[in-house]
């Protein structure tokens, strides 16, 4: 590991510094429902996985096995009860909110299943936002957003409209465009191809392949087996991390 002095870490693309990009070590998680008799529901135990740069790893397992939960913990959206979640040199499990924000801005991208935006903001601005947040000049950011929207076959007449009224498939493509706008060294994809037709699925597949080629470490959840077989190097079955019901 290269120790740099003084300069903030995010100025060095993490992909230059670490071969191993994402490392999850012995992570566990339980939900405590205080208002429902303080029920404690253990959902994960001993989760461990590693993803190197340029590698795409699929999370598999039955519905409810904890694929999304694990992904959300890696993104810092859910708190891990124990263990380490290293993204580059940041441990998401214990990092301060501002460190996680920094990480999400420059290092860790996430394409969720649902688009969540400020109402009435034009689609092109929604897609350009991650670029604007990282200091890309406005014109360049909007130009890049237009290229992505075009590639994902969102008709040009929709670009100036808010995506809140779009169809499910269109919203998902906007979400993907937004997630790929900035070249994150690490990407989390939660069913990126779920409601897409063949043409658009193909576009997303090639975008994932390109991201791998530039060295991004990717963790994905794909229900589509063909897609999984094509872009993923390995599969990790999260069923192995599910705590056995107490006998």
């Amino acid at each position, binding site marked *: 590991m290269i120790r740099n002095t003084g300069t903030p870490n995010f100025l060095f693309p993490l992909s230059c510094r670490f071969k191993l990009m994402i490392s999850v070590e012995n992570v566990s998680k339980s939900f405590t429902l205080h208002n429902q008799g303080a029920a404690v529901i253990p959902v994960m135990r001993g989760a461990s996985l590693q993803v190197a740069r340029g590698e795409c790893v699929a999370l598999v397992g039955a519905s409810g096995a904890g694929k999304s939960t694990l992904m*959300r913990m890696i993104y810092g959206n859910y708190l891990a009860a124990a263990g380490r979640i290293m993204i580059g040199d940041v441990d998401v499990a214990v990092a301060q909110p501002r460190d996680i924000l920094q990480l999400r801005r420059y290092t860790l991208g996430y394409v969720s299943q649902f688009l969540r935006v400020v109402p009435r903001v034009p689609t092109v601005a929604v897609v350009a936002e991650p670029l604007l*947040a990282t200091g890309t000049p406005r014109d360049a950011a909007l130009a890049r957003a237009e290229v992505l929207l075009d590639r994902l076959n969102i008709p040009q007449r929709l670009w100036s409209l808010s995506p809140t009224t779009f169809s499910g498939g269109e919203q998902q493509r906007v979400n993907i465009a937004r997630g790929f706008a900035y070249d994150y060294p690490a990407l989390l994809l939660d069913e990126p191809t779920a409601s897409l037709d063949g043409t658009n699925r193909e576009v997303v597949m090639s975008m994932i392949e390109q991201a791998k080629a530039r060295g991004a470490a990717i963790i994905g959840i794909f229900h589509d087996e063909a897609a999984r077989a094509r872009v993923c190097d390995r599969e990790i079955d999260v069923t192995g991390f599910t705590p056995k019901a107490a006998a």
Partner: protein
Amino acid sequence: MTPLLQVSNIAKFYGHRIGCTDVSFDLYPGEVMGIVGESGSGKSTLLNCLAGHLTPDTGAVRFDTRTDGLRDTVTMSEPERRMLSRTDWAFVHQHARDGLRMNVSAGGNVGERLMAVGARHYGDIRATATDWLGRVEISEDRIDDRPTAFSGGMQQRLQIARNLVTGPRLVFMDEPTGGLDVSVQARLLDLLRGLVREMNLSAIIVTHDLAVVRLLADRLMVMKDGHVVETGLTDQVLDDPQHGYTQLLVSSVLQV
């Protein structure tokens, strides 16, 4: 990086009743923090203590001043604090009429803050005021109208223009979208987000609207009965709340 605002152990009592107690946090430049909780949880008391409207009984509120670095605003002299609230601080009230001068024209409302920091050239003041009215989407031909002739949403946008015209570094907001209809709310949220990013503002937003904090705030602080019960990244607190009260709050939101 030095925090812009360093709050330690703030407590405010009304007699023997707790307003807020044991509040500590750091706010960094460009960060937006939301404070949520039910009515009476102490969030407005806390905001007023931070903004110098109330004097806390204990604790320190250190602000990174441009000239002298971190200074405790609780113990600084009244003129110094007033200077801060005219320059580096802004306060957006829930009711625009509390933050506006209702009998002065829209342009005058914006210009007054400029004059308070020394602007004297009428043409410049009017040009800046026009520019800011444009930024908050109030058309130029309304510049000489009084806020009494504006709708609620316009008044709120005017209040924001008046507050931000002097280029503050820290904005306190008390329910900035409360009382506005949802379509106006959305527009205002988008406006605030844009301004926060462009001006690298830090902001503390008190609200009981969880949708507002999800869209605006980076971090969240949940208050109950004057105590901070939970803090963290906004989406983490809302999606994986740890404290019973936060869980109740999140699960009580009506779905549209």
